């Protein structure tokens, strides 16, 4: 059974803190993604990676960075958390554009 896991289900942080969200997949996929999901806005792509140490900006990269040191692990970093980054964060991996495997999500609240 394929699996994408995320380090935390719920996270509460204070404004200005550095936040790390981690994602691990066990499917040997080359492509990994970070999305945020907000009501009425759908899924918006923050960053994606198509190989180890490779990264590409998505539609809303401002305020975020990523790291991919190993094929199975893709981390999202909020350099200085702000209240407008309160959201559901979803990690995904894929081997084809049509099928993405999503993790359970991390609900981040920034106070």
């Amino acid at each position: 059974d394929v699996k994408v896991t995320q380090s935390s289900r719920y996270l509460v942080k204070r404004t200005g803190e550095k936040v790390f969200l981690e994602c691990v997949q066990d499917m040997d996929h080359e492509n990994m993604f970070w999305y945020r999901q907000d009501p009425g806005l759908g899924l918006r792509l923050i960053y994606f990676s198509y190989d180890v140490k490779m990264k590409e900006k998505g539609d809303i990269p401002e305020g975020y960075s990523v790291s991919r040191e190993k094929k199975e692990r893709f981390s999202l970093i909020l350099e200085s958390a702000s209240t407008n980054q309160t959201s559901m964060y979803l990690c995904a991996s894929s081997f084809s554009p049509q099928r993405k495997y999503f993790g359970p999500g991390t609900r981040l609240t920034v106070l």
Partner: protein
Amino acid sequence: QKEVEQDPGPLSVPEGAIVSLNCTYSNSAFQYFMWYRQYSRKGPELLMYTYSSGNKEDGRFTAQVDKSSKYISLFIRDSQPSDSATYLCAMTMKTSYDKVIFGPGTSLSVIP
């Protein structure tokens, strides 16, 4: 105009009803059309996808694409309480991993 539009609902139907979920889109270059299901507090999971126009059936689910009208539908026959979830449409051009555009989702409740 948003690239993909979807009625957010919520949609509430009795068990056994036929459900129709729809999305419209503006980019005629889209060729792959997907439907994801997302249960509460879970990540989305792919239900089915179609390429270009036409219908695709999988058990109680039928996906339909009308490229001339830029309109896609997901039909659920004999709906069950376990179908209660948010349904996200998504679409992409042929080979772009990153350019998958998701609709905002329609929340469906199937009442026993």
